[in-house]
């Protein structure tokens, strides 16, 4: 009895100290984060404030940190110069199939690499990892020539079709890593029940790694949304321009409307932000599950 109390007191004291120390550390952490976040958010704020100003006010010296009048009307851009809805529609025409099929095929391939035994697995996996390291620029020219010989330049196919092929090695790799964290017994039970590989994947593994699948979908979304280089090269017609190419085109004209340019910039990343905010819960939880163990 006595011994218990004697042992207990310092322990309580220890935990109390620890909590107080942790609280102090949290306050410091919070201040540091606040400081860094202010730094990270500053360029974003500057874009927004420039979008809301009259053109001549943007360059005033000393630079004003807040707009004199908040000119929200700057965001009403003429469709002729920056057709937000057209660009949004076009970009989604590329992004949606890429995300859907890229994710599905990445799950298929990831499943094969994570669970199934077959000849040449090591070699194929090495090829897959190797392709992760290959810069897009390197294969751009031959691919461009092939697509153009096929008459598919100025269509969305060159931008979509590659995503029907496994959705990129990074994503296959990620799905594989996720699946490795699911106990193998789960799908063995299913296969004893007589389920085929496809059904095992769809009914057992997919529900278990759903957050991971959302992560992959988000990654593909962001890559295709911002793929300026390939979109610039493949898309020519003005009515087929995407958000990224439309924006650079808008910026590429002789510039005298800077607030319009900043307004267009702000508009162009709005959809991405919305998708992130919707996906962020899954996104963060999803990554927790991977463990990234080899």
């Amino acid at each position: 009895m006595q011994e218990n109390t004697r042992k207990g007191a310092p322990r309580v004291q220890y935990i109390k100290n620890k909590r107080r120390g942790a609280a102090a550390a949290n306050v410091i952490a919070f201040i540091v984060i606040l400081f860094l976040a202010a730094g990270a958010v500053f360029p974003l704020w500057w874009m927004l404030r420039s979008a809301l100003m009259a053109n001549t006010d943007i360059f005033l010296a000393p630079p004003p940190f807040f707009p004199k009048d908040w000119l929200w009307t700057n965001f009403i851009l003429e469709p002729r110069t920056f057709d937000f809805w057209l660009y949004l529609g076009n970009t989604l025409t590329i992004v949606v199939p890429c995300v859907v099929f890229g994710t599905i095929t990445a799950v298929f391939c990831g499943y094969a690499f994570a669970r199934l035994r077959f000849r040449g697995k090591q070699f194929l996996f090495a090829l897959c990892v190797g392709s992760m390291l290959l810069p897009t620029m390197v294969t751009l020219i031959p691919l461009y020539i092939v697509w153009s010989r096929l008459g598919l330049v100025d269509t969305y196919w060159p931008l979509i079709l590659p995503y029907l092929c496994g959705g990129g090695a990074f994503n296959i790799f990620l799905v594989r890593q996720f699946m490795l964290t699911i106990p193998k017994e789960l799908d063995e039970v299913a296969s004893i029940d007589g389920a085929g590989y496809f059904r095992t994947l769809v009914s057992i593994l997919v529900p278990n790694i759903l957050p991971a699948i959302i992560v992959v979908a988000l990654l593909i979304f962001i890559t295709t949304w911002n793929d300026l280089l390939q979109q610039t090269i493949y898309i020519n017609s003005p009515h087929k321009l995407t958000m990224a190419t439309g924006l650079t085109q808008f910026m590429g004209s002789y510039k005298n409307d800077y607030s319009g340019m900043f307004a267009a910039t702000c508009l162009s990343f709005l959809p991405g932000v919305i998708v992130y905010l919707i996906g962020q819960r899954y996104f963060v939880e999803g990554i927790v599950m991977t463990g990234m163990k080899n």
Partner: protein
Amino acid sequence: MESNKKLRLHAVARREQRAAYLFLIPALLGLSLITYLPLLAAFGIGFTDLRVAHFMPNNPPPLQFVGFKNFIDIFTNPSINILNSIKVTIYFALLAVVGSIVYSMFIAVLLNRKVPGRAFFRAIFYVPHILPAASVMISWYFLLLDNGVINYIISQFGFERVKFLDNIYTVMPTLALISVWTCGNLIVIFLAGLQNVPRVYHEAAEIDGANSWQRFWRITIPCMTPIIFYNLLMSLVINLQVVVPALAITKGGPGGPGQGATRFMSYSMYQIAFINGEFGRAGAVAFVFFVVAAVFAFILFATSKRWIFYQGDEKK
């Protein structure tokens, strides 16, 4: 009995193998048709004089095999000077990768604590990652102008204005900093990793009297090595491909082809292929580019076994 079982196993294995290949059809198509064949093609094109004229209807010149001419040319022609491009690309990638890893790890460690508004901060640090790269560069260009706001702040403190993007010494750190700013994806992945570090290790070390600094280096970092590796790899691949800052703002300068501070390999290739229309020469650059990327990846993979700590290893 015995042989029957073997036979059945065999059949199962065959069925499994067939299923695997079916599942892998997309990846096999992708790897062969849009990755490795084009790579070989790029290499092949590098040995020809292919240029935009070959695609024109009015008496196009015959396509010629030129041997190693393009490969020699890109190193010796003073208006190309690919050696400088390799140098600046590697310099940029190293700066940006190290900066991104340190920054994102730091932010992740802070956000891993119980601070108020975590989701909000996470969003703030993540959002720059999803912005279109070209808009990011243009916006930073205005921030960094000689009469821009950052120089205004600097001048208010009595310092001389800095020509961030127009000085051979400051342009790289500046661009690397912008790249670091956009590395929100690494932060999120690190955060996930931190939450996966087993609590028991920390508690055990704490009881042994290790302070938080020691715990960070002895427990957190070793447990995180697989994730650090993944992030390093991703960051390296992304940053070796840097092209947008040069395209949007710096145009390869400051400095001519011999010293062009931002004449990145991708940018050189873009210029040669798509502005000058010299596909053969660009193919040679593409191959050199691939070799550089491969060397870096090889170094990373070769050393990875030494410093990556897998929690599963104790089972061996």
